[in-house]
């Protein structure tokens, strides 16, 4: 049976496809189609972290603007919730907020641009002072003296319905 089939195979090879060859090719074609159909989702599944559209980091509501004294920098803390895979990660953060009335708000990252110490607002000098290496910034974040290499970093913000929302730090460099 087998010998006969192969002899026929060889004899007809140049002219037509044998029944055996046709069935064999059909099986491989069907199997290949199924395999490719399964491989595509599998590859997409594995590459998901690399090809997903980047989620925009969330804005966290801080306070109603009306509660902030105009012209007086204030330190506010908040909990930022970000998604990490299936986990929701909560980070405790802080920000210096300067409100000048209307929609004019500046939000500073609370770390000194020198080595990351926490600075504070001196009411009598009307300056931001860093205790670690005597960095001094004015109310617009500009370096007045000391080692800080660049002005204070700002945190992006938006105002929605009178409430201040904060997002991510934007380096001032």
């Amino acid at each position, binding site marked *: 049976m087998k010998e006969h089939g192969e002899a026929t195979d060889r004899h007809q090879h140049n002219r037509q496809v044998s029944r055996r060859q046709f069935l064999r090719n059909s099986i491989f074609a069907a199997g290949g189609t199924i395999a490719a159909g399964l491989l595509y989702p*599998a590859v*997409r*599944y594995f*590459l998901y972290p690399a090809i997903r559209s980047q989620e925009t980091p969330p804005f966290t509501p801080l306070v109603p603007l009306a509660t902030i004294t105009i012209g007086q920098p204030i330190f506010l803390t908040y909990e930022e919730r970000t998604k990490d*895979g*299936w*986990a929701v990660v909560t980070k405790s953060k802080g920000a210096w907020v300067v409100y000048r009335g209307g929609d004019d708000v500046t939000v500073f990252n609370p770390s000194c641009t020198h080595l990351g110490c926490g600075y504070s607002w001196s009411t009598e000098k009307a300056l931001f002072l860093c205790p670690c290496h005597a960095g001094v910034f004015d109310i617009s974040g500009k370096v007045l003296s000391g080692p800080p290499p660049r002005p204070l970093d700002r945190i992006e913000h938006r105002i929605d319905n009178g409430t201040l929302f904060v997002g991510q730090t934007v380096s001032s460099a």
Partner: protein
Amino acid sequence: MPNTKEGWIEERLELEPIRAALADRKMPRDLSGGMGWFYTLGSATLTAFIMLVVTGIMLAMNYSPSPDRAYDSIQFIMNDVSYGWLIRGIHSWAATAMAILVFLHALRVFVFGAYKYPRELTWIVGVMLLLLVMGSAFTGYLLPWDQGAYWATVVGTEIAAGVPLAGDFMAKAIRGGDSLGVVTLTRFYSLHAAVIPLIIASLIGIHLFMVVRQGISAPPRRLKQGTANSPPSAREGE
């Protein structure tokens, strides 16, 4: 299939005898006429197992076996990861299919009498595989850590606890404690994703070696009436 009689690899490794032993096996004459379909159940079970291994490895990439994360990680697979719903769906359905197929396969072997001499060892390994498939299904069912999974496992381990004398000990060993908890989930995950699949894969290797080595059994044949060896026929009226 590429012709392995010639070619670069064949010249070096001489694989043709192995291919011939696996693919060019003698088949019983009586498999024509639709009877052969009963002999596909073993291969179908193997296909389901391969699908389960592949999709299971992929699910393990995005699953967290801890009670406070398991459910969320599955929501992540279903809603966020590309085709995660498909991978998990295939895993779930292939598991159901494998449980049914392995049972039908065993039923076919039993009804055809294929477990008899000289294939008793194949049958014994097959029964072990049947039990391991049930164990895999039981441990896998807990992993989503939803209400259905939790209570099914409570009931399942209570059944183990019902065994006289050793029951309490067995239930504790399965749960990893007095009640279902953190340890139960990691335990079941380890069993489901590492221990049981490795044993199943090894036993399938042994099972298939014996099938290839011995050849498959012919379907039972009705003996002619009136011959000396004829047993009393159940189908005398036909």
